[in-house]
């Protein structure tokens, strides 16, 4: 493949190149800027003049940029020390280096939004402008967020192993909470998780990758042409991406076989059971309830309990679902929406309409609010 025509391929080289600069003694913040400049240069020049060794080209150009900055900022002695180290080439340790970058960018000292921004730039190779557009904030704000994040982790040693679960939380956030801009954040999250899975053998990394693939597979069916949400039971399953489903299921099965269950694997298992049902009616709800029981044991999250109540309502009938719901706090997000759905299935249409309208007022996103309002309207005007 011609690397000049594939910016994702160019960006895929980002963490390895950055890690080499840091290994050579460059400070992370300056090295990261230098790699960004090299990426911009690559996107500009490679289409007409593709390099034989793309990664080597990026290392050379980024290192030169770094030295330019270092020359401007550091003493002559420091500069000579750096130049002395320059000849150290070689592909060694690239695997570990990439992983270290993930750890650094998801460091626990960073706020979630900072970790997301830094990961997308330093590991993902996206520009500050692309990230700012994806999150609908001014470019100047995003630039500050990233440079603060870099300062925050500047004292972190690069050779210490980190906690992979913090990395997974950041990648999950990128996948789950993106806006629809020029950059497809869900696809970017999948790319970054796939890249992570290639450098670390961990069942939860595989679990998250499977979860992402299984949800991404439904994307085309999730929205109607007018932009409104299509709930799972009304989706045209013929539009689900069978390739992504097959890959997600295969990755999940391999992870589950290792018998080290975690929350992402369990969530992916729920998604896989949905993917496996040819029609909504054929969904294996009892097994989904079992997976939610596992999830409750793993996380004890109220959101999981809420989703479990939905599953119980499908497996054992709306009364059982309402009983499960009654054990939860009614202040939970989407509690009222779930209550409305269960009341509707139980035949209490009047109560359901009132609850749908109330749930719409409490909705935290526009598409869901409109969906709930339509549900209420459908009952009220029947």
């Amino acid at each position: 493949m011609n690397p000049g025509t594939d910016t994702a391929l160019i960006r895929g080289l980002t963490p390895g190149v950055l890690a080499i600069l840091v290994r050579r003694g460059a400070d992370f913040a300056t090295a990261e800027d230098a790699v960004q400049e090299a990426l911009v240069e690559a996107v500009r020049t490679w289409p007409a003049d593709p390099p034989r060794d793309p990664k080597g080209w990026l290392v050379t150009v980024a290192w030169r940029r770094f030295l330019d900055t270092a020359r401007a900022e550091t003493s002559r002695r420091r500069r000579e020390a750096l130049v002395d180290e320059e000849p150290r080439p070689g592909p060694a340790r690239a695997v570990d280096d990439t992983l270290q970058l993930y750890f650094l960018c998801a460091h626990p000292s960073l706020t979630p939004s900072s970790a997301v921004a830094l990961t997308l730039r330093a590991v993902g190779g996206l520009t500050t402008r692309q990230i700012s557009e994806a999150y609908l904030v001014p470019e100047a704000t995003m630039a500050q967020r990233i440079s603060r994040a870099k300062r925050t982790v500047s004292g972190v040693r690069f050779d210490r192993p980190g906690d992979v679960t913090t990395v997974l939380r950041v990648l999950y956030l990128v996948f789950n909470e993106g806006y629809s801009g020029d950059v497809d954040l869900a696809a970017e999250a999948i790319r970054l998780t796939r890249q992570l899975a290639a450098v670390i053998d961990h069942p939860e990394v595989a679990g998250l990758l499977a979860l992402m693939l299984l949800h991404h597979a439904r994307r085309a069916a999730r929205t109607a042409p007018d932009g409104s949400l299509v709930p799972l039971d009304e989706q045209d399953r013929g539009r689900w991406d069978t390739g992504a489903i097959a890959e997600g299921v295969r990755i999940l099965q391999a992870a589950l076989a290792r018998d080290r269950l975690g929350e992402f694997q369990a969530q992916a298992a729920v998604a896989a059971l949905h993917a496996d049902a040819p029609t909504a009616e054929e969904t294996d709800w009892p097994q989904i309830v079992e997976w939610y029981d596992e999830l409750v044991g793993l996380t004890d999250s109220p959101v999981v309990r809420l989703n479990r109540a939905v599953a119980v309502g499908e497996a054992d009938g709306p009364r059982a679902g309402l009983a499960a719901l009654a054990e939860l706090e009614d202040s939970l997000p989407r509690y009222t929406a779930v209550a409305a759905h269960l009341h509707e299935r139980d035949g209490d249409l009047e109560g359901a309409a009132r609850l749908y309208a109330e749930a719409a007022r409490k909705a935290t996103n526009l598409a869901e609010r409109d969906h709930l309002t339509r549900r209420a309207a459908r009952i009220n005007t029947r």
Partner: protein
Amino acid sequence: MAKYLLLKHYRGAPAAINNVPMDRWTPEEISAHITYMNDFAARLEETGEFVDAQALAPEGTFVRYDGEGRPPVTDGPFAETKDLIAGWMVIDVDSHERAVELAGELSAAPGAGGEPIHEWLELRPFLTEPPTVTE
């Protein structure tokens, strides 16, 4: 990563504690107030939390559709809604707690006597995009 509107308006909330109209402040107090607001916005830019800030003219025009082929009807300003919204700031923060903290700081802007105005600001979350993972 949630956006909030900090809305400065005069409907529904009790009066500010230091409730002296701006035209009764000294010029220095007005300058101190404006400096505080500018510094606040600059600080938010530095923390990567600033999205937008706008002040609105106090008087607006009410407009509505008046049927096919007819120009829109305009009316107002209406006395009771005058000065309804003075302006806003939009922030992008990690938590509701952080949004409350920042709104509290903005409400501490100095007014008469150089003392905080303690004015009520309304904090309204933006509706977001739907999450990708739905079950």
